[in-house]
């Protein structure tokens, strides 16, 4: 324990490390340090893999995931597929502190975030929009589909499982006999 306190983080995101360390020096808890360190990367869009304006999904939207865990009382707050809120780790901290839940997801997590005072705003930027339009121009390559038609290694979607009849055909036999039932 001679080397404590300790801040350790993936990738050379130095500003995040520094922010966490300074939080500890100014009397913050380990939880405060994790939140402030990760929030730096959300603001600075660390290598494009954190925060707004990165990794657009197939529809071009940037969605965020974040987690914060307190190892003293094993309490956790997390958000998944968070939409239109920039400070994902801040929302995760509110889940930890103001709910008995662990993980909130999607549009509902956005509504929770707004109730906690976070701003609902577009997470796209010209960079993420360019990424997405280039992807479309490259016939949606690469993508995360498999075992579907059309061939996902050559075409954009929409996709469906091979061999399935066109969806608007009824998936059961219509007899018209209203008494033929079990």
């Amino acid at each position, binding site marked *: *324990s*001679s*080397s*404590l*306190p*300790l*801040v*350790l*983080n*993936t*990738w*050379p*995101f*130095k500003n*995040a*490390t*520094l922010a*966490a360390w300074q939080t*500890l020096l100014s009397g913050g*808890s*380990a*939880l405060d*340090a*994790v939140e402030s*360190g*990760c929030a730096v*990367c959300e603001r600075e869009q660390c290598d*494009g*893999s*954190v*925060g*707004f304006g990165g*990794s657009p*999904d*197939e529809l071009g939207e940037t969605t*965020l*995931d*974040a*987690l*914060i*865990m*307190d*190892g*003293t009382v*094993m309490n*956790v707050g*997390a*958000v*998944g597929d968070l939409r239109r809120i920039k400070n*994902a*780790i801040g929302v*995760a901290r509110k889940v930890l502190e103001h709910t008995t839940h*662990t*993980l909130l*997801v999607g549009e509902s997590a956005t509504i929770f975030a707004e109730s906690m005072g976070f701003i609902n705003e577009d997470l796209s930027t010209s960079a993420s929009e360019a*990424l997405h339009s280039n*992807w479309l121009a490259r016939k*949606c390559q*690469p*993508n995360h589909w498999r075992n579907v038609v059309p061939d996902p290694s050559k075409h954009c979607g929409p996709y469906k499982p091979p061999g399935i009849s066109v969806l608007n055909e009824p998936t059961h036999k219509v007899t018209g006999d209203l008494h033929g039932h079990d």
Partner: protein
Amino acid sequence: TIGMVVIHKLGQTAAGTSTNGIKFKIHGRVGDSPVPGAGAYADDTAGAAAATGDGDILLRFLPSYQAVEYMRNGEEPTVACQKVISRIQKYYPNFFGAVICANVIGSYGAACNRLPKFTHFTFMVYNSLKNHPTVEKVDCI
């Protein structure tokens, strides 16, 4: 993705992650990052860990929980991280992933899965033995 582990001078541990996921994901996809035990895990009685990489694969193996449990059983942080990477390698030899690990006395380590274009993993450390945030590197296994 940033994964972070913090151990307070009084021994309290915390861990966290933040990410915008992978490019061109299917709408609604969530990876390992927000899942406790996958993206990150902390337990004052054993240590803390965090993972980064192909979240669809990592999520299935709960790497940070597993690394903390290895440290609970006495493994050094580097070995704990390496054992987690090895577990995944058996099923997905070409997965992209790395794990950082720290035990309750402040020892730390990391490990990653070697790929042709991913031969070492860079992470940040700041503790009371250093006077600034320090970049460290591990060779992948």
